[in-house]
């Protein structure tokens, strides 16, 4: 199993690579379009500002990912990598996302609770989710973010912080998680294993 992990200079990749290696995957780090359309799996990590995804367009990675998705290569976006699957984010309104999911990501509402949302919070899991197979509702995963995607028909897990938001999204072979599976202990490793084992129904 060869996983192409996309490097667009938004944070470090060490933790994601380490978790994939631990699960027996081979990894290739791609900072250009080359090894994307031939990958067995694609992972788009990402922390920090949505604006960093501009680099995906500038380097030709966006169109390579579009092609790869058309070729049915399973894709997992993590954190900002998940948000990028949507139309965009109010964090960087001038920067388009992939638009695979039509909604917009927005900032948590200001109020009594702190923003960012940092720490372990629980999932409410849609039972038919292939990505979250074996993960029960109430399982905790690790989050760190200030923007989030709304709950929609494609949401496969919701988490409640200030209000419910999409903790995981999937439609067929295109998947995203707002939390960090590589930092979420056994539950997170299980989710990454499900992604590596994903097959079309």
């Amino acid at each position, binding site marked *: 199993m060869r996983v192409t992990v996309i490097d667009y200079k938004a944070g470090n990749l060490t933790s994601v690579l380490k978790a994939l290696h631990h699960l027996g995957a081979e990894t290739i780090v791609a900072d250009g379009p080359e090894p994307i359309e031939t990958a067995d799996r694609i992972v788009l990590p990402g922390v920090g500002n949505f604006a960093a995804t501009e680099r995906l367009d500038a380097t030709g990675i966006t169109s390579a990912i579009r092609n790869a998705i058309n070729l049915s290569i399973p894709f997992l976006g993590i954190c900002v990598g998940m948000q990028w699957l949507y139309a965009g984010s109010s964090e960087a309104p001038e920067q388009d996302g992939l638009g695979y999911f039509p909604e917009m990501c927005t900032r948590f509402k200001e109020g009594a609770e*702190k923003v960012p949302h940092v720490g372990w919070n629980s999932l409410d899991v849609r039972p038919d989710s292939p990505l979250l197979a074996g993960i029960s509702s109430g399982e905790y995963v690790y989050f760190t973010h200030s923007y989030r995607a709304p709950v929609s028909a494609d949401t496969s897990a919701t988490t409640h912080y200030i209000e419910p938001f999409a903790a995981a999204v999937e439609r067929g072979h295109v998947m995203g998680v707002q939390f960090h599976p590589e930092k979420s202990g056994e539950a997170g490793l299980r989710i990454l294993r499900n992604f590596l084992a994903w097959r079309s129904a």
Partner: protein
Amino acid sequence: MLTKRIIGCLDVHGGRVVKGVQFVDIVDAGDPAELAARHAREGADEIVLLDITATHEQRQTLLDTVRRTARELFIPFTVGGGIRSADDAAQVFDAGADKVSVNSAAIASPSLIDAIGRSFGSQAVVVAIDARRDPDADDPVIDAQVFVQGGRKPAGRRVVEWAREAEARGAGEILLTSMDADGTRAGFDCDLTAAVSDALRIPVIASGGAGTVNHFVDVFGRGRADAALAASIFHFGLSSARALKEELAKAGVSVRLPC
């Protein structure tokens, strides 16, 4: 529901844990990789490794330690000690840390916070603050004095104004140690923790003074801490972070269980 975090802390010197994790059956200095893995298995939500005598010569030892510790650790992992530049931070991230903790170097050069945040994201920058109440100040708590160099030298900063600046520059979390409470086992300084937590939008990790389970209950309640360092929980008869969290759950604190 977002849970309160219990963070396992390893104080490391020359590649060995020198204090902070005193399991009943390990009385010696321990191996950081082994102890971090054990902490994770036994319910810690996160691990902090502090190199307490970081010197330039020991840089490579620290990086090797971080690499070995990170290899099989799949919960958030923070490394502090001797990080003086964005390049130092980059090496520690490369070795497998998820966050770095900066203290004296950030006071000396606050733009270090901006620099690390720009390259690695705010979530990766923890600013550690050691503070002592100032009885001569208008408000001894809000104006508690910040100390650097392991608490030896006053920094000329006040705790809340420095924490606010750190947040504005892009710190993702504050690790707040009360020098008054540290080592007393008489409880966290809840007033100090609350003063900082209320002034900020980023999480505050409380440290110093824990002696009983109730001290954790207090700091998560009255102290409004988002997380707490459990450096010495084993000093008062609890066998693991899990055991501590089970007690906290009984007291009504939301924690990650089972874990």
